[in-house]
């Protein structure tokens, strides 16, 4: 038990020491800075406000794309899971979009819509909608037909059916889609920013990539990773637990 808890910590410590060893061997802060050399840089970026404004720009894009992808994907998945006819028509599209590389969609969106904020968010959204739809479709197929019949007999209005009958059954699937959704979206957002935005973490990484400044690339990357881990622990995991509460009551 004790050992099992220590393993991930030891493993991370191992990774860190590997970094230190590599940094000592290269002995060139330009190529690979030592971990503690990032501290002052981080303070400098945070102090000047640069870090926060770019972090905020990226988070806003993540939120937009996440909200749109979850809404559209849930609707699509629900319709496809409930109606075999619609599913037969839309399933091939889903397969195409699932297999379209993220980069292709991003480039096409920029080419067709222009290097705009809308294009960036649409590109990320389109990348994620098919995955959400597939997960929610599974959930919609597993909906209990007896509860549907019950809702119909008692003439429950549409909104009430959604809220009390459908949504609680879909909640675990929505939570799963949200978790994998955030994980994918924030990575794609960086690529979108890298290719065609003038703000955000991805843009800063692009900037320092051109200046060959590895330390700054790492500072921005790590800051964002920390934020996303916090989102995972503070928002997504509690939501997932809350969708299961009635089972253990």
């Amino acid at each position, binding site marked *: 038990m004790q050992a099992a808890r220590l393993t991930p910590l030891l493993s991370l410590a191992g990774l860190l020491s590997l970094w230190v060893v590599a940094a000592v061997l290269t002995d060139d802060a330009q190529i690979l800075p030592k971990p503690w050399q990032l501290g002052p840089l981080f303070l400098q970026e945070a102090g000047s406000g640069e870090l926060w404004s770019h972090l905020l720009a990226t988070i806003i894009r993540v939120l937009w794309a996440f909200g749109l992808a979850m809404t559209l994907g849930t609707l699509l998945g629900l319709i496809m899971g409930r109606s075999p006819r619609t599913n037969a028509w839309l399933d091939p599209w889903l397969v195409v979009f699932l297999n379209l590389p993220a980069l292709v969609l991003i480039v096409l969106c920029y080419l067709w819509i222009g290097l705009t904020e809308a294009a960036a968010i649409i590109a990320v959204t389109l990348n994620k909608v098919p995955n959400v739809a597939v997960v929610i479709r599974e959930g919609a197929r597993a909906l209990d037909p007896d509860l549907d019949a019950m809702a119909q*007999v008692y003439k429950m209005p549409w909104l009430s059916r959604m809220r009390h009958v459908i949504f609680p059954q879909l909640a675990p699937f929505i939570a799963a889609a949200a978790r994998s959704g955030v994980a994918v979206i924030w990575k794609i957002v960086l690529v979108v920013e890298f290719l065609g935005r003038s703000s955000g973490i991805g843009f800063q990484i692009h900037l320092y990539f051109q200046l060959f400044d590895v330390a700054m690339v790492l500072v921005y990357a790590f800051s964002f990773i920390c934020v996303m881990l916090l989102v995972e622990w503070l928002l997504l995991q509690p939501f997932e637990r809350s969708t299961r509460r009635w089972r253990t009551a």
Partner: protein
Amino acid sequence: MIEVNIESKAFGSTPVLGPIRFGVRAGETVALTGPSGIGKSTVLRILAGIDEQFEGTITRPDEVAFVFQEPTLLPWRSVLKNILVPHPRLTPQQGHEALKSVGLEDKAEFFPNQLSLGQQRRLSLARAFARTPELLIMDEPFVSLDAETADEMMRLTEKLIVAHQPAALFVTHDRREAERLADRVILLEHKPTGAEIARDGNEVTAAEIDGVGPG
């Protein structure tokens, strides 16, 4: 008041029901019986408006209640909410009264999975009667209950039927259930073009019901 006039019903190319015609008056309780798989549940679903893919016409009132074979509760909502969510016009006070009528008044804040099967069945009965149904439909409401619980459920059902006087139609394989609750028994039989009514009245004999055996 309730008119069932089914000409035919098929699942895909398989005919299930042939011509079936009967009526149920307000305050009358009718038992529907017949061999397993003949289409009794299908008749109930058509009458309730759950299944609309059939040839024929149905006359039914607005206020319909259905007691399913399984309790069919919302596991993620409290016992009280299970009454109030399908009947949003009821006040919480009326919800508590509905629970009281089936002896669940002290379980209002429980979740369904904290109730025994018998209690879940009673909750589903309370939900059916909460808004004084004009048509009550029950699909084998007393199966897989032990004799004592089944007896208690039947007593409760009788009481509620007397109090609310709905037109009631229920499926059963049990002669004693039919004799005890029903004014009339409808027996279905197989025909090549789908099930039809073999007998309709109070002269359906005990042996005929027993003959169909448990479903």
